């Protein structure tokens, strides 16, 4: 009896190791950092006029069908959110009378929503078959339908609810912004940036975009400043009068950081952006998973113990 008890304890210990070794700091997965060549854009809500030129440019250059939100008149392309036919959308924040732009009380503001091309994307960590991958150089998160099994775990995982699924199709796929990688390949820039007439969306290296964003936060409200249009360091510029900013670059750190950066005059949670900590969910999930399964050491020890004990006990029973 004594011996059996000890055998059992050994196995239980290995099993315990398997499950409870949870958050051993030495095994924690390091946070990921932005690649030097990461590409993205800066969206400045105070510059945006809500013209939605980016929405139609995105549709056109990604060959996406129209998406109607009014069943009575399905011929209008007027989606209310990103969906399986819409990679990019401009949303409206409105409070009270809505009269003053970029003011929280009795004001309104616009916000552009698309894939954030996260530094440590939850969708990439979640996808069981590597259908979602992050380019190690430019950091674009793209989708490979020939791998995807359609489990929709990426949808559950993404804190921005970006991957969209074709529920209405017989042979569905996931749809999301891939930073116009087909255009990047040709040396062009994302359609939404190229066709933004105001400079609200400017394309560039994330490093430079971050510097530009920080610079704008220093501008005095009411002063006249030069804002790049389409891309940083390009020819097109526009001069405009600065309106007050919320002193935060959304996307610099949120959820482990993103490659799309945001400036706004209204708090980001009001604009519908999720309030995330600095640690990505992917890091947290993988830390716990790796603690249990690193090198399959714990499971193998556990299995060894099980084989020994079960072998002995099945003999006993005969």
């Amino acid at each position, binding site marked *: 009896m004594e011996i*059996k008890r000890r055998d*059992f304890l050994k*196995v239980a210990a290995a*099993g315990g190791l*398997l*499950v409870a070794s*949870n958050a051993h700091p030495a095994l924690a997965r390091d946070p990921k950092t932005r690649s030097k060549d990461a590409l993205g854009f800066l969206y400045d809500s105070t510059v945006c006029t809500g013209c939605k030129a980016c929405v139609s440019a995105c549709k056109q250059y990604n060959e996406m069908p129209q998406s109607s939100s009014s069943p009575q008149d399905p011929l209008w392309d007027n989606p209310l*959110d990103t*969906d399986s036919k819409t990679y990019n959308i401009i949303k409206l924040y409105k409070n009270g009378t809505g009269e003053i732009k970029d003011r929280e009380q009795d004001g309104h503001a616009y916000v552009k929503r698309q894939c954030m091309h996260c530094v440590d994307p939850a969708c990439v*960590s*979640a*996808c*069981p*078959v*590597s*259908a979602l991958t992050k380019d190690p150089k430019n950091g674009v998160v793209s989708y490979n*339908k*020939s*791998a*995807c*099994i*359609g*489990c*929709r*775990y990426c*949808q*559950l*995982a993404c*804190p921005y*609810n970006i991957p969209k*699924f*074709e*529920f*209405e*199709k*017989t*042979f*569905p*796929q996931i749809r999301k912004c891939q930073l116009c990688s087909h255009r990047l390949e040709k040396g062009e820039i994302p359609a939404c940036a190229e066709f933004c007439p105001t400079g609200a969306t400017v394309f560039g290296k994330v490093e430079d975009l971050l510097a530009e964003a920080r610079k704008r936060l220093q501008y005095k409200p009411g002063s006249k400043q030069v804002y790049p249009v389409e891309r940083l360091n390009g020819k097109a510029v526009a001069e405009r009068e600065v309106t007050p900013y919320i002193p935060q670059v959304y996307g610099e750190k949120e959820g482990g950081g993103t490659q799309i950066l945001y400036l706004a005059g209204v708090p980001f949670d009001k604009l519908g952006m999720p309030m*995330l900590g600095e640690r990505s*969910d*992917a890091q*947290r*999930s*993988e830390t*716990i*998973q790796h603690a*249990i*399964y690193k090198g399959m050491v714990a*499971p193998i020890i*556990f*299995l060894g113990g*099980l*084989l020994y*004990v*079960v*072998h002995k*006990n*099945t003999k006993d*029973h005969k």
Partner: protein
Amino acid sequence: MSEESRPLGGEVLTKPFKVLAGIFGFALLLIAIRYVFGIGAVSNLNDGYPWGIWIAYDVVAGTAIACGGYALALMVYVMNKGEYHALVRPALLASVFGYTLAGASIFVDIGRYWNAYKLFTPWYANPNSIMFEVAFCVSLYIGVLWIEFMPAFLEGVSKYKEHLPEFVRNWNVEGLRKTLNKFMFVFIAVGVLLPTMHQSSLGSLMLIAGKKLSPLWQTGLLPLLFLISAITMGYAIVIFEGIYAAVGFKRPIEMPLLTKISGVMPGLIGVYLAIRIIDLVVRGAVGVAFQINIQSLMFWVENALYVAALVYAAPVANRTKPKPLFLSAFFMLMAGTVYRFNTFLVGFNPGANWSYFPSFSETVITLGMISFEIMAYLYIVKKFPVLPKAEHA
């Protein structure tokens, strides 16, 4: 071992069986519609709630309810309590069908099922993905369960030929059975390892949902809580099924055995509740339970069920009586199921614009899966040596 189990015999096409067959037939029709017109044609699943009852019930709760085989293997082969041997087969049978049907449900749920083999293709497989681990382990375990159940099947074939359909009667199975028995310990050991891995990982699946999952359920201890509750549900289903089948088939209840098994329940539930409460306190999430909304309501329902299971199982005298024991097992199964629904659906909130409640067709498909499971169970216990031989039936 073969002396312990006997086929029940008796009519297969009973009334309840026909009703179940009807539900299953209806579900098959709806599944056909899903394959032709897409998932949206039969379900209320949407971009905010990509997972519904097919995952929360059929897979997550369903496999936990099917943990009887695992829980008994822990007791019989790991803790070396040979006296429970007679219960292993019926438990294993329920596990075989519970898991197999969960696997089948996944093929209804995933949108690009023709790519499923990519899970087993090394250059596609993503070991960082908890979904990968779950899918891989569950598939392997379904195979292991069928192998573990093989001896009963083969015995049935060789000893009770007269009960069997024509096509299996002529197989020569003795040799296969002997070889299988020699290596059975390997499958039993793997059959303990795999559920330990995937039942905990089923909880880990929700880690990456981050803030979309309410703090009442979002915790780094998800894998531990899921594992403990799955094992407890495993013992609960053995007790539930033991009593239910005995009453249903008018056989004596194996009371002494069930009483003994139920001895582990109070401890398991107690440990679970202690971890659950301490975790909520440490994370400072207790306040959330006192907000007035559906999430907090379901939180209390969930934990009240746990407490009910504990209250019924704790007194030693209760465990010798079928009724309180049955109730305890029932409450435990409900508690674990509600915990899983809460973690995957009720506590999940992708944002104000989204909502989900299962559609009629979606629910029928799930009911159809359950019906098939029960039909298969009824057929097999009547035709194969699964249930313990009744002493005085």
